[in-house]
């Protein structure tokens, strides 16, 4: 029998809310598999001027959706984590090597997700986890790069997130990463498209409010990749960015573009202190 991993009051509320649109208990805690204690509320990092507390997107979902993330057997995203484990151990590319040839096991990479995007000295740029993975695939294993938001890549990022679950997001925003971070911040506050909306309009000024049927969260990315009930698959961070920018009736940037890397670093830094939660479950 699976342990229902809710604490105290939260356990009661999870059972008592049934309507699909029911908003979840704001005091709920997130403990996965009865053992990974997630930090889903944290004091806002010093660089954030307009907010005092940062909150995981999990808090803004209905109790039914929340419940799916409490146990790996319930979390549909974990199926692809298992797929990625196989890929991790399989030889590919011209050198006949696997990820495991250099990294032993996925668990050996615990902590990595928490600090990406990260400055890469050798390439002189900020790299997302996807870029780092593709660097291994192409430069070290002699293979073809994986599609940026394709299944193989998303699954691997889900695996790497899963082994870091519970660790605090802690991306560096100073030193050589600073100019990229500033570019991301500018993008976050730019009102784009014919609707002239910025990320901040929805996720800073209006989190907790409803926009039509959607309960707005802070747009944090500590839970990525996310399994969405809406499309029944794992979704990469840049796919979500693209959807949100498109919804402002704007021309989007491409997944993997310098703009989205910068935006990712900035948004990640807004969640410094929250736990790595991926793969999480959202509606």
């Amino acid at each position, binding site marked *: 029998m699976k342990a229902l991993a809710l604490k105290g009051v939260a356990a009661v509320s999870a059972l008592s809310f049934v309507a699909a649109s029911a908003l979840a208990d704001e005091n709920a805690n997130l403990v996965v598999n009865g053992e990974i204690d997630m930090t889903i509320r944290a004091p806002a990092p010093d660089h954030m001027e307009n907010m005092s507390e940062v909150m995981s997107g999990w808090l803004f979902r209905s109790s039914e959706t929340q419940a799916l993330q409490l146990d790996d057997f319930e979390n549909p995203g974990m199926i692809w984590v298992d797929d990625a484990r196989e890929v991790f151990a399989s030889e590919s590319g011209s050198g006949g090597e696997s990820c495991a040839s250099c990294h032993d096991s996925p668990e050996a990479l615990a902590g990595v997700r928490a600090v990406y995007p990260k400055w890469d000295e050798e390439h002189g740029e900020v790299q997302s986890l996807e870029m780092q993975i593709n660097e291994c695939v192409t430069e070290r294993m002699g293979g073809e790069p994986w599609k940026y938001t394709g299944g193989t890549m998303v699954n691997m990022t889900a695996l790497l997130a899963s082994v870091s679950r519970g660790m605090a997001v802690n991306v560096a925003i100073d030193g050589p990463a600073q100019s990229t971070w500033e570019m991301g911040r500018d993008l976050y506050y730019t009102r784009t498209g014919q609707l002239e909306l910025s990320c901040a309009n929805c996720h800073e000024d209006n989190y907790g409010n409803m*926009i039509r049927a959607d309960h707005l969260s802070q747009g944090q990315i500590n839970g990525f990749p996310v399994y969405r009930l809406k499309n029944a698959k794992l979704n990469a961070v840049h796919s979500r960015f693209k959807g949100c920018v498109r919804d402002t009736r*704007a021309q989007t940037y491409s997944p993997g573009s310098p703009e989205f890397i910068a935006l990712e670093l900035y948004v990640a830094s807004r969640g410094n202190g929250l736990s790595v939660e991926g793969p999480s479950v959202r509606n």
Partner: protein
Amino acid sequence: MKRTILFAVGLIAASTVVMAGTTAPSDVSFDDQGAIANTLSGAAGDPESGKTIMRTRGLGNCIACHEVSELSDFPFHGDIGPSLDGVAGRWSAEELRGIVANAKMTFPDTMMPAFYKTDGFIRPGNGFTGKAAEGELEPLLSAQQIEDVVAYLLTLKEE
């Protein structure tokens, strides 16, 4: 999977032909407070049509952000902006026209989109495709649709 949060489809292409008596978006004059004195279409507004525009995703979709009790049969209402109940008691027809056409002239920096504006956007898209806009943009609502919405708002008097 192309559901969008606001204004799902561009059903507004009909406004391409600028009708006689219509003021083009770039020719609209706002007073200091953001109000527009005269009808944009040259004709009176139809409150029934305005009511439909208010609640329809592909049109005004005003209830994405506003609560309107009279439209409570239509799910779901957002709470980004104030409730529009009794709004006719707070603003005149001229002021409401200005707010719907370009709310930023009345409330600087407001989140409310400008429904009768076609330029000055950053990275405008081709509807909700995520691709760059091609050619001239259509306003989100036509001149007549703005008048219809204003006519509907004028029916929202405090009970």
